[in-house]
């Protein structure tokens, strides 16, 4: 029977399921699950409620920022300032509350700080055509320095009248014993996933990463979207900072140091492509989970902690290697 034009047009080459199974995120997820399975049998301490609680909570700070970072990476950009922005926002929150203001004012101040920094990055990148690497590298230095200025480089551990509220916000478990940070992470991931798939804003983020010139020519407000994306990235760092402050109960000027690399690693392991145009919210979580499981397992297996970097670095290269092999096969 001849195939009509109608049938051809109605056809789809690959189903959504096939696409997911063929993707990098899926294989990393399998790796995470296998690692968890292996550790449950190999050690007595992995599959305990306490350790799982720890792992899930530790994942969240990197994962929340990786969500914002994924948006930036999809547009083809990068944000190196997130670790320092986390620190600055934590410090603004801590100093404000320490001065006797309420938790609402503290959180507002921290979020406004994050948005202002994100807008600054975004305007320089989108309107003045600065390379994202340079702008956010500058901000990495500036934000941490401002945190030191704000606190006079001291440790803040007294949060004024709302001290207990802040600690409950970050350290509590309000819902079926799941750590609060994990709840925030899940909510933010669902929100990010929804925005990427179902909104015009999400569609434009992918379009900019796929072909920025084409997006401009077809009337996509490229500059405004870019500013928004860097604001979201800084905001995700700010939110992680607020939650982490509540969890740790103290802020020093070196929290979040080097975190930008872990975040980028999580996004890339989860399938985001640094060349732009590809990435998912779920991938960011899976990537962050793999990094944390590696960290946790080395400790439990009694392997020297110095090996951590080797394993995480290996995971980055391996995850992307699978993707490269797949692309090579396709192009041949």
């Amino acid at each position, binding site marked *: 029977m001849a195939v009509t034009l109608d049938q051809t047009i109605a056809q789809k*080459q690959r189903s959504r399921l096939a696409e997911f199974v063929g993707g990098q995120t899926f294989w990393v997820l399998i790796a995470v699950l296998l690692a968890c399975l292996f550790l449950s049998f190999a050690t007595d301490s992995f599959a305990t409620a306490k350790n799982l609680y720890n792992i899930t909570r530790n994942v969240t700070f990197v994962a929340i920022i990786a969500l914002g970072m994924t948006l930036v990476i999809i547009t083809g950009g990068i944000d190196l300032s997130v670790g320092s922005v986390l620190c600055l926002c934590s410090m603004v929150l801590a100093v404000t509350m320490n001065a006797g203001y309420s938790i609402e004012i503290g959180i507002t101040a921290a979020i406004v700080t994050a948005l202002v920094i994100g807008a600054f990055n975004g305007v320089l990148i989108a309107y003045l055509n600065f390379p994202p690497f340079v702008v956010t590298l500058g901000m990495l230095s500036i934000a941490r320095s401002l945190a030191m200025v704000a606190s006079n480089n001291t440790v803040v551990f007294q949060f004024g009248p709302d001290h207990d509220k802040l600690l409950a916000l970050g350290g509590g478990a309000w819902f079926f014993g799941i750590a609060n940070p994990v709840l925030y992470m899940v909510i933010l991931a669902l929100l990010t996933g929804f925005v990427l798939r*179902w909104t*015009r804003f999400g*569609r434009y983020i*992918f379009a900019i990463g796929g072909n920025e*010139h*084409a997006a401009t*020519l*077809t009337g*996509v407000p490229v500059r405004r979207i870019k500013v928004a994306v860097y604001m979201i990235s800084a905001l995700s760092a700010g939110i992680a900072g607020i939650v982490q402050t509540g969890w740790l109960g103290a802020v020093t000027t070196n929290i979040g140091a080097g975190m930008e690399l872990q975040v980028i690693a999580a996004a890339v392991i989860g399938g985001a492509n640094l060349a732009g145009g590809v990435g998912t919210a779920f991938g960011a979580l899976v990537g962050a989970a793999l990094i944390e499981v590696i960290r946790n397992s080395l400790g439990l297996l009694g392997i020297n902690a110095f090996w951590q970097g080797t394993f995480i670095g290996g995971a980055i290269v391996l995850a992307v290697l699978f993707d490269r092999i797949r692309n090579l096969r396709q192009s041949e």
Partner: protein
Amino acid sequence: MSFALEAGQVVGLMGDNGAGKSTLVKMIAGNFRPSEGTMRLEGRDIVLHRPVEARQHGIEIVHQDLALCNNLTAAANVFLGRELRRGIGPFRVLDYKTMYRRAGEIFKELKSETRPRDLVKQMSGGQRQAVAIGRTMLSEAKIVLMDEPTAAISVRQVAEVLNLIRELRDRGIAVVLISHRMPDVFTVADRVIVMRRGRKVADKAIAASSPEEVTGLITGAIEQV
């Protein structure tokens, strides 16, 4: 330079590199703002600040590089910049179903075996062309500008694109065809405008001209007609 377009007419716009063809077309499409001069559509003055406004007036453009996003589906590319959404107020989501259906209808009209749900990355040159041209068919266009549509495709696909241009013309659309390829212009165009260094040096019916004359006008061997 000054010129007029008529409905249902194909105008070939020719000139050497740097003659100002693309700049002219990008002004009509709302990508660049002219420093002076006026544009009129159906007797009314129009001022275009953005590509979106040009589209609202029924002016569509097919860019030289097609302006496609490889990481998006064919339907997403067709609707890029004017996505259909459903829902109310701020709670509007992309209407995937309708966009796939409309894109499918357009590809069928173009007689192109292009699947709306497939990524443009995996498509052939002809399919990519269909996606880019499909954009102009979303709304009732009055003017379609085509910037070098036949520059980077195979001989068979050139014939397809020329057929498509005729189809647009038969619907009463004014088509402006920018091309370096003399045969294309002489096959499909009704009128030819030649530009040299930002000026119009000829504007005459194809029947009254010849490839030799146009070549002379492009290079400057013939000053003006």
